[in-house]
């Protein structure tokens, strides 16, 4: 991917770019580069999607009820256990 200096620069700012933490100027610069660099576009898209998938997967995981029950017992909080 690092065919040009711009690709390399993008790589270093990638984290902040996908988190929306870069200055407007840098963003504009990166977006201009993305328009003409297919590889960087793919890397940005798949990086975003990677983070998104982990988010979605995480949201679907809950505390198993029996684990919660044992925790409350261990902490002597039985009276606060919700049915």
């Amino acid at each position, binding site marked *: *991917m*690092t065919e040009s200096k711009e690709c390399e620069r993008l*790589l*270093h700012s*990638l*984290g*902040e770019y996908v988190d929306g933490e870069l200055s407007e100027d840098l963003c504009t610069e990166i977006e201009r580069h993305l328009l003409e660099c*297919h*590889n960087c576009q*793919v*890397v940005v*898209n*798949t*990086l975003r*999607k*990677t*983070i998104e*998938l*982990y*988010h*979605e*997967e*995480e949201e679907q*995981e*809950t*505390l*198993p009820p029996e*684990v*919660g029950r*044992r*925790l*409350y017992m*261990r*902490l002597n*909080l039985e009276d*606060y256990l*919700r049915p």
Partner: protein
Amino acid sequence: MNEPNVKKPLSVQALKAGNREEFARMVEQYSPGIYRLALKMLGNAQDAEDVLQETFLKALRALPGFEERSSLSTWLYRIAMNEALMILRKKRPEAFSLEDQTTSQEDGESIEEPRDIVDWCCLPENELLSSEARDFLNRAVEQLSPALRAVFVLRDLQDLSVRETAEALGISETAVKTRLLRARLKLREELSAYYGHRMEVLGYDRIERM
């Protein structure tokens, strides 16, 4: 979690004074997140449950002396992360001895170039999050070094800010950013190989592979 009393912010003062009801609310609010954190760090339900229990037992003992230098949640995540790393260190010391040699490298300037350039974003959602894909996602996190995994779990899975992640791990914000980028790029690489293969199996045309 929809109960009105859960939404009321926790009173740190009541917690420090040993109010049991407030402590129960804290447990209710944070136990799912702490369990997930431990599960992702350790990849084992029994270990994760141990971390969960130890975290709140330690918090209960330490609350009267809580100095509020960080938020309550960051403080709890810090206790939980220390517990998880301790178990990891006992079970897999080799991951840490290796890490000592690579930590400085991991915080250094150089970022590994992306290798797998395939756009798998077009795969349908049921393919991206099939049960097989979920297993793969979890295994990929487990393969990260403990240092990278800890940052990824706190920042991207538990949604802590860069600053909170730095506080919870006792490292600089710069180190958080570098490790986070490395972790994300490694995961992207793993996922690209996996989903790229799925695209081939399903007959999608791979646009380009470098």
